[in-house]
């Protein structure tokens, strides 16, 4: 195959929640793509739609929420018969019905998720081992004994010591770091081609965070899977991602290679985010430069460019009136801001 191969393309995704108080436009135009084996970071302040984007990809959005527009093209590799080359089939995940058989087949086996707070994703009343085994038994034709062996093996792989006995412990008996490892083991059981990790290290301290990130990198190398890493920690993005999508109020406002994004952020929101963080080894004991104001509540989404009330470069009469176009630059970066509309 020539060049890098696409795994996922998200085009014009919109996901809304229809509530009595009004419509929450949680995702309002997300565009990005991801290569097979690649790593994409999704960053943005809380409430900007990162989690809803991830849930949309796996069709986990529950009523009153719904994907209302857009495509999520997943390039599935169909393992051909022994000897013949693998072929790919493109599925639009946005068109699959939540809870349908097709999405259930894909979710958990080809696309897996790791959640921010493992305690909410793991059942407190079942052992780690039983929960992980259930995933394989659901998706693969294996005996209970084989499932158990594979589980022990995977737990060892993600760095859980004494995995034969840890299998029989309950989630609350493990530390935060160990629980996150168990979650990762569960997600990887079926060797997915895409792992979506929603704030996998936010609840952990720095050393545990470094351990988990190293583990994810190592497993990714070994298994060739792609990763979407959702985080609000720009340091984590810089350490592990190849591409970055920056989200603000449901829109991907910038999408770029990680080096380009940090060296030359284009969107005023990206620039402001990068300015606002204290950087290790660079503090001059001055004041930090926070983004003014805060993310507006989702019922009062500003018109025009949603960032305009907080943007230092806002052009009155334009940014507050028209929705900025999605500009694709020659190098493939995209940015949604009028400052780049004429280039």
């Amino acid at each position, binding site marked *: 195959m020539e060049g890098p191969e696409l795994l996922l393309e998200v085009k014009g995704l919109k996901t809304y929640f229809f509530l009595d108080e009004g419509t929450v436009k949680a995702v309002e135009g997300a565009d990005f793509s991801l290569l097979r084996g690649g790593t994409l970071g999704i960053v943005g*302040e*809380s409430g900007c739609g990162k989690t809803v984007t991830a849930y949309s990809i796996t069709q986990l959005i529950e009523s009153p929420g719904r994907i209302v527009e857009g495509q999520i093209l997943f390039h599935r590799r169909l393992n051909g018969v022994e000897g013949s080359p693998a072929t790919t089939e493109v599925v639009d995940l946005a068109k699959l019905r939540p809870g349908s058989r097709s999405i259930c087949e894909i979710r958990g086996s080809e696309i897996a998720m790791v959640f921010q707070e493992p305690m909410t994703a793991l059942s407190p009343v079942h052992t780690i081992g039983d929960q992980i085994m259930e995933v394989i038994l659901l998706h693969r034709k294996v005996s209970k004994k084989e499932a158990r062996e594979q589980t022990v093996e995977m737990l060892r792989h993600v760095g859980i010591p004494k995995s034969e006995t840890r299998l029989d412990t309950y989630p609350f008996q493990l*530390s*935060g*770091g160990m629980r996150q490892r168990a979650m990762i083991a569960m997600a990887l059981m079926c060797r997915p081609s895409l792992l979506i990790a929603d704030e996998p290290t936010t609840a*952990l*301290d*720095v*050393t*545990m*965070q*470094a*351990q988990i*990130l*190293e583990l994810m990198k190592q497993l990714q190398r070994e298994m060739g899977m792609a990763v979407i890493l959702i985080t*609000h*920690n*720009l*340091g*984590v*993005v*810089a*350490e592990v991602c190849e591409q970055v999508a920056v989200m603000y109020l449901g829109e991907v406002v910038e999408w770029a290679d*990680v*080096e380009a994004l*940090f060296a030359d952020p284009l969107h005023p929101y990206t620039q*402001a*985010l*990068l300015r*606002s*963080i*204290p*950087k*290790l*080894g660079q*503090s001059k*004991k001055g*004041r*930090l*430069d*926070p*983004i003014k104001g*805060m*993310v507006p509540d989702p019922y009062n989404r500003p018109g025009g460019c949603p960032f305009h009330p907080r943007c230092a470069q806002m052009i009155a009469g334009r940014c507050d009136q028209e929705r900025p176009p999605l500009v694709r630059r020659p190098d493939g970066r995209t940015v949604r801001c009028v400052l780049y509309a004429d280039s």
Partner: protein
Amino acid sequence: MEKCSVLLTVNDLKMHFPIRHGFLQRVTGYVKAVDGVSFSVCCGETLGLVGESGCGKTTIGRCLMRAYEPTCGTMIYQNERGETVDLARLPGRQLKPYRRELRMIFQDPYSSLNPRMTVLDIVAEPLRVHHLAKGKDLEDRVAALLKRVGLRPEYMRRYPHAFSGGQRQRIGIARALALSPRIVICDEAVSALDVSVQAQILNILQDLQLELNLTYLFISHDLSVVEYIADRVAVMYVGKLVEVAPTERLFNAPRHPYTEALLSAVPKPDPRMRSRRIVLEGEVADPANPPSGCYFHPRCRYAQARCATERPELHDVGQGQQVACHFAEELSLSGVRAN
């Protein structure tokens, strides 16, 4: 260092929680959450306290607040009239005035505010309890406090759920400031916040410190934040301090292997600096059953035979830096600017 008037001196502080077992609830051991910690804090200074989860940071804070009865040690505090008192020994009744002078801001802006109280009640409560204001005067003072932390006083009759994480943290700060404290213990005060809101709160904390001559004990596991806000930093591991130094020195020339590892684990927001990281394996040792010798030796890349048997003491290595490592003088460790 500049001349400093010492506000608080903690000496050999220990907090051992008994582990009870069985029907008779017999004590079978102790969790040595804080095990012989000594440090001092100057007036107007920010002392950072860092370390991995479970190493005892919050417990130190709670001992200072006397939310826990320390097992032993002294906490000598110089009060507003210049008298010194040992907060560790003071009986409950006599503690009351000091509960005004030392306040704590908590980690979680969601659970630390009572959801059934309005913002007015939350911020006013300490003033009421100490009979410092009532009626219109009380409301005026709450309004002034809210303004000071950048919140609109018009919102004071709303409940916490109507506010964002950053706004709730501001409410928590306003409440902590209500009694004009002298020392504020910030326990992971910005850890749960978004980067941009975090920057706003850090700026507010710094402005307030200058305005009100506050002294902070700033507990956090985010070293970038600590570097930004602290004048000096104490590094804690399994109930003990392993290094104390002025911020610049600690970050540029750490002398303890644990400090070096912590610094190297911080993800740097610059893809060109993708570091050859020291990934500390394993977890913090169990404070109920710590390793022999230097508690850090099972995870230390520089450990030698002596480390497994002999416990290093915290000692001075010059330039205001103290280290508890047998080889502090010999090792050449890297700080954050080395790469």
